[in-house]
C-alpha cells in the first residue's frame, strides 16, 4: 500500500540573500513497507521526523533522495498527484486549521466537491461518512460550536468521504483532552477493523499505539525500532534512551519485574496486568 525506498528529506535553511545557511536532514534513509489493511503506528518525540515522513505519503512533500510509492504510484509522478491524494487521506494536528466549511456537512463535502463527484453522490457520501464517525446529528452545526474531539471526527469524516484506501493521522490527538483523544482513536480503530482502511497513526502518546499491528519508532530521522507493540514495549530501557516513555501499566510491570516478581515483558493493558498478577498469586 505504502512503500518508501531509501527515503531522505532535507530542509534547507536560507538567509535573506538565498544562500544556503544550513541543511537539516529530517528524514534519513527510511525504508518502510505497509501492507493493505494494516494499522501502523509511528512513534517519536518532537523533531524525530515523523510528521515530515507523513507528509510524503500525501505528496505534500517530495523526497530529496529515494522514492515513495502509494499503491504502486510514485509520488513524484505529477500525473498521479490527485489519485494519490484521494487514496491516501490525511488528518492533521490542529482541528481548527483543517475545517474549511462553515457548516459540518459542507466541510465533509469539500473533498468530494474538489474531486468532481456529482451532487447527488456527494450528499450520499457525506451522510455515510458522518454516520461512520457518529457525527450525523451535528451535520447542520457550525464547527465553531464543537469540541476538539468532535472537530477531529468531522475532519476524519471529510477524509472518508473521499473514499481513501489509507488514512494518515498526523498527531491527531496532540491538541485534545483525554476524552477527545479516546474518541479519535476509537474512530481510527473502527475504520481499520470495519472498513478495512489502512491506518498510519503518528503520535507521541504511548497508550494510543497498543492496538497497532506494527510500530515504528523514529529518532533523528531514522527508524530505530520496528515490531509489534509488545516487542517494542518489552524494551523499556531502549525506549528511555530514545527519550520515549511506555504506557504506565507497562512501566509498572517492568519495575515490578526488576524488583523480582515473575512478570513477562511488554504488558500492554490493565486487564492483562491483572491477569498476570493473579497467576503469580496462585
Amino acid at each position, binding site marked *: 500500500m505504502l512503500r518508501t525506498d531509501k527515503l531522505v528529506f532535507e530542509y534547507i535553511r536560507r538567509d535573506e540573500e538565498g544562500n544556503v545557511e544550513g541543511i537539516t536532514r529530517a528524514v534519513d534513509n527510511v525504508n518502510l513497507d505497509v501492507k493493505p489493511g494494516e494499522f501502523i503506528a509511528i512513534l517519536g518525540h518532537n523533531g524525530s521526523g515523523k510528521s515530515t515522513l507523513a*507528509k510524503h505519503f*500525501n505528496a*505534500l512533500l517530495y523526497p530529496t533522495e529515494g522514492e515513495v510509492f502509494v499503491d504502486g504510484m510514485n509520488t513524484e509522478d505529477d500525473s498521479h498527484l*490527485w489519485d494519490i*491524494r*484521494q487514496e491516501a*487521506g*490525511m488528518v*492533521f494536528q*490542529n482541528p*481548527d*486549521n*483543517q*475545517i*474549511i*466549511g*462553515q*457548516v459540518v*456537512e*459542507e466541510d465533509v*463535502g*469539500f*473533498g*468530494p*466537491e*474538489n*474531486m*468532481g*463527484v*456529482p*451532487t447527488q453522490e*456527494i*450528499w450520499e457520501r*457525506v451522510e455515510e461518512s458522518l454516520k461512520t464517525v457518529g457525527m450525523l446529528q451535528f451535520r447542520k452545526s457550525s*464547527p*465553531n*460550536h464543537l469540541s476538539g474531539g468532535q472537530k477531529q471526527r468531522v475532519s476524519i469524516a*471529510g*477524509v472518508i468521504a*473521499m473514499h481513501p484506501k489509507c488514512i494518515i493521522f498526523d498527531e491527531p490527538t496532540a491538541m485534545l483532552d483525554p476524552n477527545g483523544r479516546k474518541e479519535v482513536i476509537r474512530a481510527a480503530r473502527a475504520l481499520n477493523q470495519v472498513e478495512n482502511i489502512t491506518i498510519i497513526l503518528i503520535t507521541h502518546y504511548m497508550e494510543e499505539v497498543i492496538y497497532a499491528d506494527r510500530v515504528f519508532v523514529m529518532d533523528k530521522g531514522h527508524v530505530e525500532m520496528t515490531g509489534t507493540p509488545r516487542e517494542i514495549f518489552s524494551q523499556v530501557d531502549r525506549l528511555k534512551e530514545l527519550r520515549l516513555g511506555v504506557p504506565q501499566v507497562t512501566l509498572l510491570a517492568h519495575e515490578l519485574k526488576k524488583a523480582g516478581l515473575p512478570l513477562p515483558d511488554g504488558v500492554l493493558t490493565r486487564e492483562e496486568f491483572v491477569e498476570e498478577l493473579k497467576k503469580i498469586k496462585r
Partner: protein
Amino acid sequence: MLRDITLGQYYRTESVIHSLDPRVKLVATFAFIVSLFVANNFIGYVIAALFLAMVIYLSKVPPKFIFRGMKTIFFLLLLTMVFNLFLTPGTPIVSVWKFTITQEGLKMAAMMAVRLVFLITGSSLMTLTTTPNHLTDGLERLLRPLRLFKVPVHEISMMMSIALRFIPILMEETDKIMKAQMARGADFESGSLIKRAKSLVPLLVPLFISAFRRANDLAMAMEARCYKGGDGRTKMKPLIYEKRDRLAYLVIILYLVLIVVMGRILF
C-alpha cells in the same frame, strides 16, 4: 460569548424571502437601488415604499429589527438633509441671517432623506434574510461572466467564505492574546489615543504570526483534500432557480417598468 457572533445580521426564520435564491436577492437589491435614483416624483416613491413594505411583510423580519440599522446612519441622514436644505439655490421661503431655505431645497432634502432610508432598508433586508455563505455563493455565480476578463471569481468567493469561517476563531485568539498580555501587565485601556494605538502592537504581532501559521496549515489541509481551484469542481449545494425565483424576477421587472413608466407619464 465571542464564538456566538454572527457576521452581518442574519435573522433566522422561514419565509418566502429567506428561501429565495441569493442571486435573485442580489439582483433585486441592485434593481431597487437603481429604481430609487430613477424615480424622481412622489408617485415613484410611493410605489417604492409599497414594494418595500410588501417585501418586509413577506420576509417576516420584525420591522424594529430592520429600523435598528437606521440608528447608525442617523447622523449621515441629518447632515445630508441640512446641506440640501440650505445649499440648494431657488425661490427662497425663509431667510435667517446668511441661511436661506428654498422651496427646491426643501424638496431636495425630503427626497434625499427618503432615498437614503429606503436604500439602507432595502440592502439590510437582503443581509437580514441571506446567510453570508449563501451571499458569497450567489456572488460567485453572478460574477462568473467576469472570468472572461481573467477575474478570479471562484478564488475571491473562496477567500470570502474562508475569511467568514475564521473570523470567530481569530476573535477568540485575540481575546486569548489580550488576556495573556494583560496578565503580564499590558494596558490596553488607559492613556491617550496614540498611546492606546501603540499598546496594540504587542497584540497585533502575535495575532498576525498565528494567522499566517493557520493559513499555511489550512492551505496544506485543502491541498491534501484535492483542492485544485475552481475548475472541475462540483457543488454540494448548487444554486438552481425554482418557480418562486422566476416569479420573483418577474415581480422585479414589473416593479422597474412601473417606476420608469410613472416617471415618463408625469413629466
